[in-house]
């Protein structure tokens, strides 16, 4: 059975993009169409089972949408012939998949003990202040930033490391924060 067949054979309301299930809610737009679909199909050729492509498939979703919604989890489940609950189990197991929308810039600050000893707390505070997010995990009113604390980023010698999306900053101190932010659109 091909995924296309599966997609085609379910009641429309069943798929996350159904016109019935969410008649009142916003219509879900599937991720895996066009180029994203082609990318996934290419990925699938590299894995022994469809299930094995789950993490990369979720990455594609996150790249396209910025986060992984429940609807998207269900879509991924359909495409990979898994159950929605299983996909959610995986999504919620990892911290790197966002289950809520986040700012355009996702700031991760290491606060594990070594960095903590070198002033990570101050770095965090500075980010919260200068991004205007005020609270960890909250997105700034302009939709630009979300700041979270993370465990060891593997750069303990260069405390405090900060990741802004995929960009890595070493040896960040509270007074460098504004400088980092100012370079962002």
């Amino acid at each position, binding site marked *: *059975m091909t995924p296309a*067949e*599966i997609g*085609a*054979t*379910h*009641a*429309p*309301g*069943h798929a*996350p993009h*159904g*016109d*019935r*299930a969410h*008649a*009142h809610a916003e219509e879900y737009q599937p991720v895996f169409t066009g180029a994203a679909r082609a990318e996934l199909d290419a990925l699938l050729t590299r894995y022994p089972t*469809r299930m094995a492509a789950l993490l990369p498939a979720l990455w594609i979703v996150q790249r396209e949408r910025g986060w992984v919604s*429940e*609807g998207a*989890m*269900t879509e991924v*489940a359909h495409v990979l*012939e*898994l*159950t*929605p*609950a*299983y*996909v*959610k*189990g995986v*999504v*919620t*197991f990892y911290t790197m998949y966002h289950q809520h929308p986040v700012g355009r810039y996702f700031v991760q600050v290491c606060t594990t003990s070594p960095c903590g000893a070198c002033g990570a707390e101050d770095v965090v505070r500075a980010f919260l202040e200068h991004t205007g997010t005020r609270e960890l995990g909250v997105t700034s009113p302009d939709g630009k930033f979300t700041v979270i604390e993370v465990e060891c980023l593997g750069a303990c010698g260069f405390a405090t490391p900060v990741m802004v999306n995929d960009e890595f900053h070493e040896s960040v101190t509270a007074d460098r924060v504004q400088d980092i932010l100012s370079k962002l659109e």
Partner: protein
Amino acid sequence: MATLTVNGTDVTVRDGATILDAARQIGIDVPTLCWYPTLPIVGNCRVCLVSVEGSAKLLPACATTAADGMKVTTESYAAVENRRGVLGMLLERYPAERIDERGAQNEFERMVKRYGVSVENRSGLPLRAGDDRAGDPMIQHDMSTCILCTRCVRACADIQVVGVLDVAYRGDHAEIIVGADGNPEHAGCTWCGECVRVCPTGAIHDVLPLAKFARDAMQKPATSVRSVCPYCGVGCQLDLEVRGTDVVRVNSPWIEEATPNMGSTCVKGRFGTDFVLHRDRLTTPLIRKGWVKRDGRWRYEGDPADVKRWGRRGGPWRDIEGESNTQKSRPRINPLRRLPTVGGPLGDPRDRVATPADWYEPFREGTWEEAMEIVAQELTRLRDSHGSDSLAVFCSAKCSNEENYVLQRLFRAGIGTNNVDHCTRLCHSSSVSAMQRAMNTSAASGSMREVECESDVIFLLGANTTESHPVFGAALKRAQRRGAKLIVADPRRIELAQRADIHLQMLPGTDVALLNAMLHHVIHLGLHDQAFIRERTHGFDEVARAVEPYTPERAETISGIPAHLIRRAAELYARGPRSSTLWAMGLTQHRTGTDIVASLLNLILATGMIGRWGAAMLPIRGQNNVQGASDVGAIPMVYTDYQPVTDPSIRHRFAQAWGVPDERLSLTPGLKVTQIVTKGSPVRGMYIMGENPIISDPDVAHAEEWFLGLEFLAVHDLFLTETARYADVVLPGASFAEKDGTYVNTERRVQLARKAIPAPGAARGDLEILLELSNRIGLPTPFSTAADVMEEIASVTPSWRGITHARLQETGGLQYPVEHATHPGTAFLFADRFPTADGKATLVPVEFLPPAELPDEEFPFWMNTGRQLYHWHTGTMTRRSQGLDSREPVPTVELSPADAAEMGVRDGDAVRITSRRNSIEIAVRLSPRVARHQVFVPMHYREAAANLLTNPALDPYAHIPEFKVCAVRIEPVAPGRHRALSVERIEPLVPAD
């Protein structure tokens, strides 16, 4: 084999058995939480750890293979201390106070008590959370008591093969979730309740008992009574939990392996038995007003005004036609987009679909004495004045073997007619006629467990097993997961078709073309079993000649199935090595039903896919006792065990057994259901037990009219059904839970159901009613209990010779033939011969004939009818079950999205479906399961009765009507009434492994 010692006792176990298996084998109870029979072993809870000599660590009994010479101590100091520790940790996140407050109430709490773990001084960690299914009408979650054993996750994924549940989040946030968004429907839940069954703490629990019964009723001591599910032919064994005089819930803990279900049920079995306690139950005999007794005789002297208004047996109601044609009103809320809470805004379903008050109006309450007098008097009067054949009886596929036997005995010996039939006529009669002709048999050759565990290829035709026989449907999904290949032939893309390796999606009624072409291709490739054909069959050459013109290409033009799929299916099936063949109404309910089944039997016989373990022939039976009712003679042409009524020597034997002169028993085969209910039939009086022909017969408007013309009608049922409202006398019978009796499932397994509660009010056990009636019309009955009746059945039924209630109780069911008192029953048949004179089966050439009515310009759609998951036949029981009815409250037609778009109708719109016979108004459910220009209408709803539309064209051999095909036209009703009904329902999800 390994021999080990457990707590000092030697025990020998099979290879691969675990320490737990060994302990259980000798009755040692090792506590377990995450382990559960048949579930994959995960070994994550660690309460089953035991000491094994020579091992420094404790070992999990559930996950350690027993080895030769092991010395195991299950309650060693270390093991017990460890167990306490584990239980103590689980209690950290458990509302432990309640154990002290109200005692141990579930498996986990009992274990806590057993090991004396203190529930005090808990650390005050927050209780667990999780998806809760709030407002669900049948199943809800209270995840504060979840101990994360994951039994529910595995039960749903591995037993039911659905996969609604899983564990999400990590560490101490881990919790059980329902699908991705908490909505069970979006995750394909079928409400089977398997998760309820396995949960050791009641974190997942059923709603009904708590919602329906007062607290103190639930406090009464509970007893458990073994019974058989009253719905489909799988014949699941259930444990009814009885408190006082109520069945408060259905439990089915692990039930030993001899049962067809091993404790599983579907939604109907687990949550659909509350009809038993429905307030509509008849509690006293009803007598049509106007029956009066003068000079010792009852006469009908109805009020002329009433008779003028309603006819001799009518009433102040709208007939089925009238109801189906009326506008459907809009429910106050969408019944399905929000799951209705019990007692919530949807209200009590009893008020929406139950017996309307005015149906009772033409009746008065009577006494049993009056009712029985009238029935006996009228039956004998008609017999004496118009001859025995002016009377007919419908037995019931829902009643026990004993009751059906006594009823057919009553009519054959007491009245002297063979006009005895039941609804098998409308379901598998064509299978029976084809199987009789080919191999003189009338039942399945194999077993369900055999198909699940042994078959390499499963060929399923015209059977929506996951909805109509869900427990067997799950078994088929498990079989596929084990590696069996699945071929599904069905015009609809049902769940199993979606999962199948090959789906042969044909136009309705073109099965002969498909099957002949498959055989053509098999012969063409030389894949037929020549030795089997030579030694065990006749007629192959003629059939080979007959299928010669049926090339796959020709079949493609007839059936619409691509020729290459036909070829692939034929090869897969014939290569087996062990292929099982399963079919149901999709093949049989055609005017060519017998031919269709015959062409399938040809394929089975030519490839030798019968008579070997793993190669089963299994017509899947619809009702819990349709097999049994036929077996005990509730069909017109045979006595028990299919012994023909036309044979004088057989007649002699029965006359002797029943203590009547030979001449009393007629040698003429009786009329069949479809011959009785038809214009010009000689029948003037009827007795109907537990059937509802006014919904189930084809072209019901005419059937209803026919019933109006009867001179006398007695109906014996639980409710005042659509049929019963036309009766002169209505006798209140007992439900399955209120009587002892045996039922035969689809694999010939005779099973015993026990009486759990008394019948309500003055309602009486059906057997009791029939025995009294028999005696009143002058046919003495030498028995008083169902067990006695079974003795007589066994004495006149060779293949049931060894069956007694005592043995059934002991064994949990026997598959006939059971030849003598110690015979273990027969799991599969025809290993070396068929039960024909020379032991050989016969292939019969058949030609394709199209359905009687094909779409044309005026009626451009094919209409198909059948069952839904949540309802049952004429809805008499399921529509009075709160949970079931709330899942499927309104009649819907499945229409393909493309057709709907063309017509401009949307999901939930009301449409009018019209056939050459009649017309109904019904709501649309968009469903890609149906092909274009085909629609599917469920048969359960009197307010949109599918059978008003169906074509009464009959199969010439079995007289089964063509329920599955008729031509219809579909029109949106006035646009202002669009979205009159909302009908979201989503087909089960199809995850892959």
